[in-house]
């Protein structure tokens, strides 16, 4: 709009430039329309979360009256704080394990020479082709036999390190010049010290991307928590499991369900807003579906 007015007010702007400005304005209008389409569902969700249950029927209007009662109910009368705590705990443990183990393994496959390395690396990549649904029954039986079924340990164990993360770290280590390791060697650093003090700090950009993507993956995961914790005992539910259960039992309490949905989205949103750069570079370079 403002661009158009500027163009109209200036008589010296040639005809072609005016056309360009009009085109530009139309382009931005289109972009804004698309952005609005992307935002409307989220705005509607936030709006509905501040409604009363009877008011939630009026889907096109603003809350009347505004109330935080749905937020209060979800936070105090349900187990959402527990779900969030569980999800944060699992995400934190799994992210730390993945950084360390994917870093160690990635470094070994990138730089250390040992017999059978390439064959083992093929095996690691091969695990990417095993679909979760195929592993479902064997892993379930294993966890039951080990007495870990329904415990956090089962979920942590199967997510200790993923092939995607290991591959991602390896690719990054390959780009670091060998000079750093040679310098460390001259200083008398052993293999682990070289890895821990020199290579891992140099791989900080890769680690940042890994942290963010793995946090998002664990926080959003629904399939494995459903299999391993979904036995009706809510003390081990993750946020996604808790939200699904809530939708299942209280689907008529629309504002509360919306509060639950917001709680399930917000942590990832915050991390996304802070670390956008790493999200984009991480997704593109690792080829992970985000």
């Amino acid at each position, binding site marked *: 709009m403002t661009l158009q007015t500027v163009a109209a007010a200036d008589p010296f702007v040639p005809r072609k430039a005016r056309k360009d400005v009009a085109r530009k304005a139309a382009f931005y209008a289109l972009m804004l329309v698309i*952005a609005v389409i992307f935002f409307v569902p989220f705005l509607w969700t936030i709006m*509905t979360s501040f409604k009363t249950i009877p008011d939630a029927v009026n889907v096109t209007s603003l809350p009347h009256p505004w109330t935080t009662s749905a937020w209060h109910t979800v936070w105090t009368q349900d187990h959402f704080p527990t779900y969030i705590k569980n999800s944060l705990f699992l995400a934190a443990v799994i992210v730390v394990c993945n950084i360390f183990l994917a870093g160690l393994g990635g470094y070994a496959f990138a730089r250390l020479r040992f017999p059978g390395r390439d064959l083992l690396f093929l095996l690691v990549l091969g695990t990417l082709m095993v679909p979760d649904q195929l592993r479902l029954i064997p892993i379930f039986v294993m966890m039951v036999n080990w007495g870990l079924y329904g415990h956090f340990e089962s979920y942590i164990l199967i997510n200790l390190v993923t092939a995607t993360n290991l591959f991602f770290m390896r690719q990054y280590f390959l780009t670091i010049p060998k000079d750093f390791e040679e310098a460390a060697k001259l200083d008398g650093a052993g293999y682990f010290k070289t890895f821990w003090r020199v290579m891992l700090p140099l791989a900080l950009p890769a680690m940042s991307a890994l942290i963010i993507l793995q946090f998002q993956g664990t926080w959003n995961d629904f399939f494995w928590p459903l299999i391993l914790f979904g036995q009706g005992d809510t003390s081990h539910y993750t946020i996604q499991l808790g939200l699904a259960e809530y939708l299942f039992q209280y689907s008529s309490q629309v504002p509360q369900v919306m509060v639950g949905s917001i709680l399930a989205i917000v942590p990832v949103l915050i991390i996304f807003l802070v670390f956008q750069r790493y999200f984009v570079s991480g997704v593109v370079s690792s080829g992970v579906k985000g």
Partner: protein
Amino acid sequence: MRGARLREAGWGYGFALVPIAVFGLFFVYPFIYAVYISFFHWGILGKQAGGHGTFNYSKVLHDPIFHTALKTIAEYTVAVVPLELALGLSLALLINQKIRGRNFFRSAFYFPSIASSVAITTIALYIFNANGLFNQITGSNRAWFADASTVLWSIVGLNAWTTSGTVMLFYLAALQSIPDDVYEAAAVDGTGAWRTFWRITFPLLKPAHFFCLVVFGIGALKLFDQAFIASMEPAAQTTRRPLRSSTSTTRRSITTTSASRRLRASSTSSSSSS
């Protein structure tokens, strides 16, 4: 010299040991175990008498629910992948202009891709239900996720929307790797924008097309969260296109009707008796 090499190999194995053990124990072994189980009668008590053979395969291949599942996932994949790619490429082309607020738009378009699939599907169930926001705006009264004739296409639409942001990122990276002189040459020849796109940009994106087709094709075949949550749509309790194989119409908890409960029941009793 030989000692140094041995030492390096030792550290190499040491570093790779835990990851290799994890992959062996939770990927390779379950894979082999699953294949093994598939050739036996395997009940709640574990392996049963009756020898081995391919009877489980023929049973599944003759199961009408399995046929429905195959047909549904095939329809879904064939529909959703081209849509995701087309939407993602369109967004990438829009973003790839020299514009202000590029990062803002990129983030806005990408965000649905990383938001929780359970939450997004939950929100969609309400926006597209019979009295939902979508119908209030368009004047329709169809319960999109509850109606057996539209639920699949609703999930297609939902996932095309959420996934298009990720597709966009890949296309954006590919678009930026096309050198400027190609476009300059086209401009010198007086080629129009539309023709430039179809004759130059689109063919040069071939590696990206192929990559996205594979990655998002696999992703589509793995559909689970959205279909599972959509089957919990309140009005869909009697929806009869079995996106999940349960035929139960009563629901108490998310696990009551899910495969996980049946699995648990069978597996718990098998372990306690063995």
